[in-house]
């Protein structure tokens, strides 16, 4: 009798363990990015669930954007972002970055939710959330602006649960390798060398004597983007920083697109016109923005339209937009379907929601 009771006990225990294991497997299968993000922040899955709670589908998508962006899988980031427009600053921030890296930021900018400039640069300050701060440096690193890439990685580290997330240590090591601060890089590489096997392998390949030709090229490309002179600027003077980058390297297409899109998302048409050189870049977005400026300044001459590469089709569409706009007394109800993804529509109807 006692023996049978023991048997049932073992069976019950096995069932409980199997159920727990199966539940864990299902969780991992449904939330692969949550697990990766937790590992990058230096904590276990259990700790992550304690600290951050159980992720829902939207959170898993956002974490996917962060993880894939960290590995610079830009097409994957773009694919993930299009699964669902999350109407979320972080989601837009990574979708914009992916589109920029794929060379199509202005062409896609109006296709999805844009929380004004906060979809290009996540604000960093005492009122920012740690989660956003931890993401904010990714765009600066790609732009080649290491002071802010380093700052935001340090802040990411500051807010990671154990203050030692490898995601941030890697960025700090690499930012310092780019700037040539090998002594600082050594500190972070040594920490990674004493981390997981993946981190150790990553760190070993970043020792300058171990750089592959591809990695040498990557560092050289990043260095080529760096400012060549020193200028002291405020923490939030984003357009100035982008102009510093462009003055260092006119071929920094990423910085140019970010600057022009920043001007447009903040509806600063005058700044856009000052920053826009039609000889350097072209996009329908820029044509649409120039038409607003030219119409306002009475500059709709054939010469100007040609200078700014404004197509006849775009010009005609603008005329149609203006006609409907005037006819409806400024109402956008008959413009949404046809012009909802134009810059004109954004310019006249997008309203900043400070609480979002």
């Amino acid at each position, binding site marked *: 009798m006692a023996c049978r009771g023991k048997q049932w006990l073992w069976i019950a225990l096995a069932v409980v363990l199997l159920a727990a294991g199966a539940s864990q497997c299902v969780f991992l299968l449904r939330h692969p990015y949550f697990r990766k993000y937790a590992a990058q922040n230096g904590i276990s899955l259990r700790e992550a669930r304690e600290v951050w709670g159980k992720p829902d589908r939207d959170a898993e998508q956002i974490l996917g954007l962060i993880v894939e962006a960290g590995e610079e899988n830009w097409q994957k980031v773009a694919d993930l972002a299009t699964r669902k427009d999350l109407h979320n600053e972080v989601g837009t921030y990574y979708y914009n970055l992916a589109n920029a890296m794929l060379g199509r930021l202005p062409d896609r900018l109006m296709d999805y939710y844009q929380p004004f400039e906060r979809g290009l640069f996540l604000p960093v300050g005492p009122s920012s959330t740690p989660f956003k701060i931890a993401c904010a440096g990714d765009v600066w690193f790609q732009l080649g602006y290491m*002071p802010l890439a380093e700052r935001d990685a340090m802040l990411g580290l500051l807010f990671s649960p154990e203050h*030692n997330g490898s995601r941030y240590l890697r960025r700090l090591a690499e930012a310092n390798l780019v700037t040539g601060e090998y002594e600082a890089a050594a500190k972070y590489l040594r920490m990674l060398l*004493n981390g997981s096997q993946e981190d150790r392998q990553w760190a070993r390949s970043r020792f300058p004597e171990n750089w592959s030709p591809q990695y040498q090229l990557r560092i050289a490309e990043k260095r080529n983007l760096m400012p060549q002179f020193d200028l002291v600027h405020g923490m939030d003077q984003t357009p100035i920083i982008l102009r510093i980058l462009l003055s260092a390297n006119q071929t920094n297409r990423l910085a140019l697109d970010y600057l022009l899109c920043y001007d447009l998302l903040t509806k600063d048409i005058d700044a856009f016109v000052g920053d826009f050189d039609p000889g350097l870049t072209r996009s329908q977005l820029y044509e649409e923005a120039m038409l607003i400026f030219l119409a306002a300044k009475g500059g709709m001459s054939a010469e100007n339209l040609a200078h700014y590469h404004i197509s006849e089709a775009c010009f005609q569409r603008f005329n149609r937009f203006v006609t409907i706009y005037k006819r409806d007394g400024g109402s956008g109800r008959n413009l949404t379907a046809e012009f909802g993804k134009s810059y004109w529509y954004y310019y006249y109807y997008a309203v900043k929601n400070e609480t979002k």
Partner: protein
Amino acid sequence: MKRNKLLLLAMLAGLPLSCGRPYDVRPAGPGTDRDSFIFPDYTDVTLPINIAPLNFYYTDPEGKEFTTHFLANGKTLSFKGREVVWKEKVWREWLAVAAGGDITVESAWSSGGTHQFHRWTLHLSHDRIDPYLTYRLIEPGFEVWDDLEIVERHLESFDTRVISDYRHTENKCMNCHIHSQGRGDLSMFYLRGEGGGAILNRGGELRKLTLKNDTMISPTVYGEIHPGGRFGVFSTNIIVPAMHSEGGRRMEVFDTASDLCVADFDGKRLLTFPETSREDVFETFPVFSADGEFVYYCAAPAHPLPADLYQTMYSLVRVPFDTATGTLGGPADTVWSATRRAASVCHPKTSPDGRWLLFTVAGYGTFPINHSECDLCLMDLSDGSILDMRAVNAEKSDTYHSWSSDGTWFVFASKRGDGLYGKPYFSHVAPDGTVTKPFLLPQKNPHYYDTMLRSFNVPDLGNAPVGFDAATIGKVWKEMPAESFE
């Protein structure tokens, strides 16, 4: 049999602990943050006889068969292995054996088939160092912070005590703790934000003060308590954080306005004076002379900032201080001229014996912690001469210094090595002005600094423990009303 099995299981369970992966010491060598063959680099340093054991490790990644021999007064003590870790009792016995003389150290190991050998020295000074050091542990934060702590370390052992922290103050910002002339019974620091104030410790009695009135441009920022304990001298600053566009220069901070004021802690008054509240002059970093008869501070002609940042250079000046009324006199005497030297002074600190004035010199501005050119400068106040500090200064920022209560040792935060994280280094000053190669605050684990991602901010020496702890400060923050000043 069953007992044997249990024993075997226990041994196997303990196996991973004893067979852990050794610490990877790479990268090391020239061009890295570990350029000496040992870390911390204790070769040829001068030590106070009451310091905690100097544990260190060898940095050669390829090295093996490390042996270390300590020799003093005909006796030898040997260590084997990469890490040299002393038992505290043995270390103290050895300091007694050396009896204030030198300890010779012989380091030997094999590396890549060659034999390596170094002979070096630990110099012992009879001058004891104040046994307590307070510092704020902070990650480089750029206007945001998390998990701040102010810690008091016992320098004769590895014991630490948290005297204020985020746990008891709902993660409030707190600024560094400073002693008056190294006195554990006279010190202060700030708790910022709601429920905060200047926390004044006089003989263990704590007060929370709101050091701001309508005539001041900001609450008090930098300053010091008068040796008499009744007054404090402070700067008020409009502080603007900014960034350099060049990668390695990082964050810059400047003041667009700054003045001085005196706080009368007994009369609950804040006093301002025409000489030190001029709109055309930036005044900051005030401290008292050892006898309390003067106030030294930094002053620069006001400039539009950040446009003229590189031209903004602070001189070191002093004005008389009336110890009866708390009045600052004038006009200011120039002690060190920025115009003449084309450089900028920060953080003056007079030694409590009145002999020395230690300050920081940087290329420009008022925030030297990210300035690699920033060095410590020592003035002999008996004749105004500037002493040779090449033994002390490194190629990275050296600043935020303080004196021991007898003026024979000073500590400072240096970013030597990685250039990012400030660490406390100690130097000795002999009566003839000879300064010694600094040594890094020893830690029980020689790899401690390898994984440390926080700066030791404003290390400050104290001759006795401060009479409070983090729980007490938590209560002060939560329950004690702040006293307002006129």
